[in-house]
């Protein structure tokens, strides 16, 4: 399985929201729906507060429970990679995948009714481009690449920096990494 990962540097992210706008523009996500979002996590006691910005989206889990529990095979891994996609023509809108996602990263497309989510912009990845959110980030805090390539930037970052993933205890094996 080809493993595409996103590596986001929380030390340079300023929470501007450009990634969110880029996604909506690139993927024509309808009003009121979001495939990605930004979380501002604050810890400590005033005045000793520490803030972390995280651009969040589907984690394109290697062990994706949304794929496991989909009754029709609509949720699937793209091209033997970890990129999780939904095929609208196979989706009944039963919403099992939404309940199965511990990151609440899925949404119901309106007005159509099929389930939609971040695709890691696989249409761009297929052409060797970065996802729209990554390529539009003004601080350059977002990185995308294959973990299988030992010389990739993402591999280098994960080897040289401290990082975390969200809720690894779910067992879903998420693929969005946050440098800390």
């Amino acid at each position, binding site marked *: 399985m080809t493993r595409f990962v996103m590596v986001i540097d929380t030390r340079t992210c300023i*929470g501007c*929201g450009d990634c*969110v706008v880029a996604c909506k523009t690139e993927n024509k996500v309808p009003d*009121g*729906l*979001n495939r990605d*979002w*930004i*979380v*501002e*996590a*604050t*810890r*400590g*006691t*005033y005045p000793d*507060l520490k803030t972390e*910005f995280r651009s969040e989206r589907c984690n394109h889990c290697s062990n994706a*429970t949304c794929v*496991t*529990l*989909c*009754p*029709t*095979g*609509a949720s699937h891994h793209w091209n033997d990679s970890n990129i999780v996609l939904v095929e*609208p*023509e*196979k*989706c*009944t*809108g*039963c*919403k*099992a995948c*939404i*309940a*199965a*996602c*511990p*990151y*609440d990263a*899925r*949404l*119901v497309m*309106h007005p*159509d*009714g*099929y*389930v939609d989510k971040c695709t890691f912009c696989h249409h761009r990845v297929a052409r060797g481009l970065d996802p729209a959110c990554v390529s539009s980030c003004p601080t350059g805090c977002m990185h995308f690449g294959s973990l299988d390539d030992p010389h990739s930037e993402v591999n280098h970052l994960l080897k040289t920096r401290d990082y975390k993933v969200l*809720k690894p*205890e*779910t*067992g879903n094996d998420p693929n969005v990494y946050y440098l800390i």
Partner: protein
Amino acid sequence: MSEELLVTARDNALIDPSLHIWTWEVAMYLFMGGLTAGIMFFAALMTVRDKEHIAPFAATRLALLAPIALSIGMTTLFLDLEHKLFVYRFYTSFQITSPMSWGAWILIVVYPISVLQILSTFRSGYPFFASFVDKLKPARLLMDWCERNRVTIAYAVIPFAVALGIYTGILLSAFGARPFWNSGVLGLLFLVSGLSTAAALVVLIARQKTEKELFTGLDFVLILSEIALIALVIISLASGSGQHIDALQIIMGGPYTFQFWVMFFCIGLVIPMLLEILEMAGISKSLAMLAPVLVLVGGYALRQVVLDAGQESTWTHYETQYSPELLQRLPGKD
């Protein structure tokens, strides 16, 4: 302080601020699925154990209610689908890891089996309608065959009825992302609840005294088992990880405490159980019809509260959520 704020708009319908993807339609389906399982199970059991003289309604007429209940459930389930035109996709593949896929195929197998079960006792249960069926030769031959193989069909029905009853619980318990559902006992709890509601239905409809007594006794045992299973669900959540302990709080002081303990546990289990004790002891007969009605209400309440509490339980905790109402406070907005 530890606070996680969503700083960009995220107000995805059905997902934010907390999951509410499944409402009464799914609860009704889970209830009807369990009831169907119970109906088929008891109708088969009475045939296998040769109890027709004690329980004529359950042995010969009850089975007809199975496809009716199941069809009501499947209709409400269909109403829940967001992409309705593609409902046929359930039957263009079989996903071995998805309990919902198993369920879709179990339902397809249950219908014809249910028809065979109905035909096997149709002449004794519904002689008037059976006389019409008899006018059609292939139907008459099929009915003859079913009658001859009445006991074999009943034996075949039992595993499918159990599978149907238990799958509705496994369906929910397979969602690791919703800790409240994530207990292996849930399948068994839903099965026993389904059997209990079917027993209550027999008590409600049957006319013969021996039959009412038999099913009141059966229902009493089933309610006791249900209480024991609820204790196991609570123990398994309470002794689980942080997410499970948090999930348990939803019914232990949290938003669904009243629904769980009053609507389901007291009204749907304890009160009908006490009424059944009084009835079996011959003390009170005046409230005889109330117990089965409460059991049926409790059966639905169990599905609804488990469905709601499960969607409330989550791995993702944002302290503050985006609220569209905030936009109204912007300057220039009246």
